[in-house]
């Protein structure tokens, strides 16, 4: 197999005296979908936020497409980057948040256009037509001029996905994208994510949606207490888990 697109090595992170990530390793290859599962407090979201340097890690490394995130490799040493340079690295890593976090003072279309125009310097007219295409892909072309407050949670999350895609990222991170949604709106967001997965987007997804993991994931990683308990294809980890901890968790969420 080729070099993985994402490689996390021994990622450690503590808040005060509490170690929330106890040396996590992860490899994600191009076009792969990896779901991170586990009980709340397992460190899934924290780990995901380390992947685009929203959280700084205490030790270990995160490599995306051969670049150490948050650092510059020179002469065998990793030099910490300034926030401005980290921003450049983040262009290639999309992120979708549990609480959507659409810019409240901008319309759906403006939310999607913001990144390409302001960050990538794309021509505004071109960015606009591309943004409209993206909104069409997530089924919201007709809501382009709506403000976030006028959209349902599911619609907001789909706009948020379009906003990330507008940056043409190599990698997409999803942080519990359906957890803040009413049950009847979960489906529309998962459908968009499923399509994205089939189209070959590389995705790391923190989720509690076992059905999505079973269907879309190439690999699931089960985390508990800041460590990887078990990794493997969904049909094995979800159907025949090897570890007691995984079994207990699955018994609880699937019941």
């Amino acid at each position, binding site marked *: 197999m080729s070099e993985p697109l994402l490689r996390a090595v021994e990622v450690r992170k503590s808040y005060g005296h509490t170690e929330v990530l106890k040396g996590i390793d992860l490899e994600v290859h191009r076009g792969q979908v990896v779901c991170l599962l586990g009980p709340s407090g397992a460190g899934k979201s924290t780990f995901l936020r380390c992947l685009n340097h929203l959280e700084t890690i205490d030790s270990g490394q995160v490599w995306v497409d051969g670049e150490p995130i948050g650092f510059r490799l020179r002469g065998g040493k990793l030099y910490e980057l300034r926030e401005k340079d980290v921003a450049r690295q983040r262009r290639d890593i999309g992120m979708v948040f549990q609480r959507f976090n659409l810019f409240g003072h901008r319309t759906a279309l403006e939310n999607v256009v913001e990144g390409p125009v302001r960050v990538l310097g794309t021509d505004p007219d071109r960015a606009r037509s591309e943004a409209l295409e993206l909104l069409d892909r997530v089924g919201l072309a007709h809501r382009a001029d709506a403000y976030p*407050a*006028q959209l349902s949670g599911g619609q907001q999350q789909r706009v948020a996905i379009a906003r990330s895609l507008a940056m043409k990222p190599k990698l997409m991170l999803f942080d519990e994208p359906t957890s803040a949604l009413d049950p009847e709106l979960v489906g529309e967001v998962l459908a968009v994510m499923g399509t994205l997965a089939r189209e070959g987007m590389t995705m790391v997804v923190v989720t509690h949606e076992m059905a999505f993991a079973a269907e879309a994931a190439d690999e699931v990683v089960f985390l508990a207490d800041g460590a990887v308990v078990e990794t493997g294809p969904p049909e094995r980890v979800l159907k025949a888990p090897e570890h007691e901890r995984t079994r207990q968790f699955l018994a609880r969420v699937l019941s």
Partner: protein
Amino acid sequence: MAGAEPLPIVRLKHWGRWVSAVVIIVVLALLGFGLAQAQIEWGSVPDFVFYRVMAVGLLNTVVLAVVSQAVAIVLGVLIALLRRSANPVAKWFAAGYIWLFRGLPVLLQILIWYNLALIFPTISIPLPFGGYLVHEQTNVLISAFTAALLGLALNESAYMAEIVRAGLTSVDTGQTEAAKSIGMTPGATLRRVVLPQAMRVIIPPTGNDFINMLKGTSMASVIGVTELIHAANNISSNNLLVMETLIAAAIWYMVVVTVAGIGQHYLERAFGAADRGPVARAGRALRGMPLVRSARV
């Protein structure tokens, strides 16, 4: 139980409202009657309103207030950013700045700037290789107007710093994270995402402060700046019609304050879009309320 026939409803009679309305009107009428006994030459008030020196006073009041507020806003944003910085020295400095300039009475600050020449007869900023960038007598450098401006602006900047800080804090951290996630730099995040949404919280108290500032310029009369109060005193020192000239000044204050209030209203409306920020976060509760926007704009 009653049949198909609907029973008539007798509405509650709000006697208390009638009584209090009558009391208020009677009190106002008595007050008006009392005021009518005042020995005021009403006829001269319109003249004083349009006296030339009043126009000068009005201009100085407005210019002093606008420039002071503008300087205060710029300084306030800077101090607020320092206050939120990760640098402990910057934080400490900002806290000290606010403590000092908010703590001292404005009048005292104006007097200190005005009398600076007593302790620093000249102000010099030397250049590294000889010569001066600034080398001037303090009295020339700091006129009465400049002293008033410094006093008002620096005092207000301390308040603005707190207002701006509250505004920045009111914007959900998720907004900053979303901006970061699409590769925006910290500066762009502040300008494009955080500040516009903070305006919703910043504008109303800033409007209040500006109205206070308009009235606060009256303190400049103490050091001889010809603003409205000083202009009124100028007129009355000639004709001894103290109350009439003060009423003329009062009319101008009300005009200026009313105009500022209207301006604030439109400014708040212009930034109404930012109001959708927190609403969006409460999106779940507002589902099915497509009129949210039109109701606000």
